[in-house]
């Protein structure tokens, strides 16, 4: 369906108060980096960061949202957009994949977008979920991101997007690739209006999403230890036929190469975003 007439419409607000995602099975989780056994309740309290080595576990979209918005108040927008097998891609395997990942994540797409307050500042927030087809961008994700910039422009509010993505989604072919152009077209207009776009790069942030809006934040924040780049490390290794050095494409690596503004630990992410918005608003 083409949303050519959407400019004349008001966004539809769906007020949702979902329950927090449950603590994973069992009481303990092993840190994949230092192998320390962590008590789940403690891990949750520590925002899913290993208390021993500082490893940042991947977060589901709603876990991240609750870590960032004030008082768990978040108004989801465009949660009613659903993917279809537009190409169609080889005998329904896409629909099967969608069904599986909807069930697995409890989401209906790889991004949740909406409006909430961050440190008291009203903002539009979009959060990718890597668990949903690798946080990949196709028609729905592209449309939601595009609308988020359009809402931000209309209401003169900041836009914060947390990415955790493997790039453009194969199952929608060129429709996916063109979302890179669509999202950046909207970002271009939002920037010209003086908007503030904070791009937060979580693990991993690569390929088509990085090569469009995620690399074009006014301020780019990376979480420690995230994989950030254009090509995935396996593709690079196959191309150059050698092993990549330890830490290649890590947050610290891209920071050293000038690609991000700040590497911020999860415990300070919300306050850092809040401080940036506060300065942006002082004019």
């Amino acid at each position, binding site marked *: 369906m083409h949303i050519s007439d959407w400019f004349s419409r008001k966004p539809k607000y769906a007020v949702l*108060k979902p329950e927090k995602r449950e603590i994973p099975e069992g009481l303990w989780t092993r840190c994949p980096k230092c192998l320390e056994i962590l008590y789940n309740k403690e891990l949750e309290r520590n925002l899913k960061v290993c208390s021993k080595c500082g490893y940042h576990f991947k977060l589901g979209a709603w876990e991240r949202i609750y870590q960032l918005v004030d008082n768990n108040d978040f108004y989801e927008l465009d949660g009613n957009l659903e*993917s279809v097998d*537009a190409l169609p*891609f080889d005998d329904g395997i896409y629909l099967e994949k969608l069904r599986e990942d909807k069930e697995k994540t409890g989401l209906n*797409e790889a991004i949740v977008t909406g409006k909430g307050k961050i440190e008291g500042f009203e903002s539009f927030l979009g959060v990718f979920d890597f668990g949903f087809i690798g946080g990949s961008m196709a028609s729905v994700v592209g449309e939601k991101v595009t609308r988020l910039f359009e809402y931000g422009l209309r209401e003169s509010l900041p836009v914060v997007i947390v990415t955790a993505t493997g790039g453009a989604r194969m199952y929608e072919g*060129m429709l996916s*690739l063109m979302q890179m152009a669509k999202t950046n077209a909207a970002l*271009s207009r939002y920037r010209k209006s003086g908007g503030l776009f904070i791009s937060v790069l979580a693990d991993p942030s690569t390929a088509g999403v990085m090569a469009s809006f995620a690399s074009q934040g006014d301020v780019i924040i990376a979480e420690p230890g995230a994989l950030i780049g254009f090509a995935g490390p396996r593709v690079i290794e196959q191309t150059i036929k050698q092993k990549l050095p330890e830490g290649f494409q890590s947050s610290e690596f891209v920071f050293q190469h000038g690609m991000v503004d700040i590497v911020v630990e999860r415990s300070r992410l919300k306050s850092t975003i809040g401080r940036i918005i506060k300065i942006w608003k002082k004019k």
Partner: protein
Amino acid sequence: MRKLTPWEKVQLSRHPQRPLTIDYIENLFEDFVELHGDRLYGDDPALIGGIGIFKNRGVVVIGHNKGKNIKENVVRNFGMPHPEGYRKALRLMRLAERWRLPVISFIDTPGAYPGIGAEERGQAEAIGRNILEAFDIKTPILVVVIGEGGSGGALGIGVGDRILMLENSIYSVISPEGCAAIIWKDSKQAEKAASALKLTAQDLLRFNIIDEIIPEPPGGAHTDITATIRAVEESIERNLEIICSKDIETLLEERYQKVRRIGVFEEKMVPKAGVEPARSPSST
């Protein structure tokens, strides 16, 4: 002649004798001056650019350029640009804007280069920036896909006012081999992936991603290079005329709306205010 399969088109689009950007430059533009370098780090032989005259009109030309043989391909990196290539292209697009000349962009790349230096110097940033800034380049941009349209590496110089595509060229979110390796864990399923991805010019016209298909001689572009170049010339001339006659505000608005409409999805009904919201986090 029978209809070619998507996989056969993939082969044709990569044919070693297929005309390259350099062939179009040599045959279509008078007084061409190649311009080099991104003014930041280096010059990228995989993505070339310059200025020339097309039908009595000054133009800026950019394009991926593969080599004609192995030796040339080593120099040209098989048409896979580094960030310097994209930054040079952006520099030339801004030059075109200042000089009020239209941009003609030729697409022919397997993709942006996945390598260490490319990552260190911000491949994703370079491509992302080009796509972003293309919506603010205040001069007409004409894009012609002449061979392989390899994903983000193609789109990095692929935003424009008219997108033309040679009949047997392809444009895809991922290579069929890459897609097959991920989905079926077997790159030998590339033929199946080529069909699934809908990467032919005919598919992309149907999805309104491109504007026009330029016909190729039977057997493919390489079987009659002169005829292919003439067909491209005719199409460029006609389409350039159209976009150069529009005022710039209209052009930028249409450039925006053209991509704004791309995407296929379902927008389900939202419950009215006061109705109990659904329990699942994001379904309504």
